[in-house]
């Protein structure tokens, strides 16, 4: 009978997968490997450099306080606000730098595209959960810290199927 034959065929194709590697990865212990150090942008050529769009990194020595990142964010998420910093830089007379609210940020990266002074980039850090809303607001000092990320798992494809390492 064709109906019984079809059901047996369907079951058989599912049974084959009992011997296949598990596709999922054990998340807190294993982490996915991403391309590059994060999303960067070259204002001269107007083209970005591929990488994960995670939390930002702010280079205080390049930031001039021009507010272009905040202007870019205005119609999108309104996550960037300019705040006073207790630092004196030659290029930043007003001493204002961006502060980012990750409760609002959508990680589109258009603020990175807007920065003409190579000051704002994005990193591979995507683990930003916190217990309070106020802890999601990153001050310029917090944004200057480079996150430590351990990533080692990549999709592997062999004769037993695809798996995460």
């Amino acid at each position, binding site marked *: 009978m*064709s*109906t019984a034959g*079809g*059901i047996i*065929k*369907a079951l*058989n*194709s*599912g049974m084959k997968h009992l011997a296949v590697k598990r*596709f*999922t990865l054990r998340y807190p212990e294993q982490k*996915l490997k*991403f*391309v*590059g150090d*994060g*999303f960067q*942008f070259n204002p001269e*050529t*107007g*083209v*970005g*450099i*591929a*990488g*994960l*769009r995670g939390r930002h990194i702010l280079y205080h020595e390049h930031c001039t306080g021009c507010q272009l990142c905040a202007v*870019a964010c*205005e*119609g*999108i*998420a309104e996550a960037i606000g300019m705040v006073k910093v207790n630092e004196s830089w030659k290029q930043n007379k007003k001493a204002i730098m961006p502060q980012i609210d990750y409760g609002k940020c*959508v*990680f*589109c*990266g*258009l603020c990175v*595209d807007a920065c003409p002074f190579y000051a704002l980039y*994005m990193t591979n850090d995507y683990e930003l959960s916190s217990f309070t809303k106020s802890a999601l607001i990153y001050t310029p000092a917090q944004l200057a810290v480079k996150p430590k990320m351990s990533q080692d798992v990549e*999709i592997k*494809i062999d004769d037993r199927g*695809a798996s995460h390492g």
Partner: protein
Amino acid sequence: MTTPLPPGIELEKIDERIMTLNVGPQHPGSGHMRLIIKVDGDYIVSCDPDPGYVHRGEEKMAEYRNYIQNIPHLERPVIHDSSNILYPYCLAVEELLDIEVPERAKYVRVIASELNRCIYTLYWLAIYGIFLGHSTMFMWPAGDRELFIDLLEAMSGARVTHAFLVPGGVRNDLPANFEERCLRQVNYFEKRLKEYEAIFYQNPLLIARTAGTGILSRTDAIRLGTTGSVLRASGVDFDVRKKEPYDVYENLDFETVVMKEGDSYARSRVPYLEMFESCRIIKDALQKMPKSGSVRTKLKPNPKGGNDEVYRRVESGRGALGYYIVSNNRPEPYRVKISVGSFRNLICIPYLLKGEKLGNMPAVYWSLNYWPVEADR
């Protein structure tokens, strides 16, 4: 005693035979929309779809933002098909602002669009499987979708809402070794896709539930103005990529998938067969793509459109998706109208469900490739 009603108000008379059922809007298999179904026993007498529960005002929002700031919010209606919903917007804005797109960017956009089409179709297939009670068909596409999500994440930096396509090209160049990785994963996926055939499409249980239900004839499909896989499953050979090729689709080698039956089975099978064509397009585009060169035309800081209006459309995962943009010499568009495939396919639900059994409702409804959030915009 009942209080008399105020003058001019009449209560609906309840027929003892006909019962009204509200399916939705809390997503019990309808998406975030409501189907008002009238049943006579087990048979559906009439069906009235009631969309609008997830309206986001995207078109109005677009009038207050400039052409670049519109990018992240315009992809929100279909976050898992975000390249395809941005594609016509980019084409329209490029025409408005007279932007020339580099050759390599065109190929990268086609690759992103086809990868996203596969992501969308696999997501839809997973939901179609689980609503027919086939839980393996939920797990398999949801897992294989990860292959494409990883590729787009390497390309754009985001796993779901990419904001990758911009007027003038794409945001960034492809990473190193992308072509090799893409070929490896797409080749594996094609092998994997063939396994869906035995477990799902040749499965007698699926055929019994979908074949012959919700038949949409060729004439009706054209008359009702359906689009995408619904139109092609009814035997109409129409694909925007073939009929009005945009970017580099005319150089690429692929075929339109057409089925004649017009029932739920054909509508569920057409997107599956199109995934093979998508893989073919991706491999062809990787081969024909210029190996180096610019991927983005630099725009002026706050570009202004002239006094002009433009309509451009592309083939998305759910059918023709078009943007109509009117500009009036300002950095913001004067009016943005999004014409989506989901809303156009919604109209045939009353015709398809009339006379069907209530149990066939999920099989017919989900075969329409309908996405409520996109329809409401």
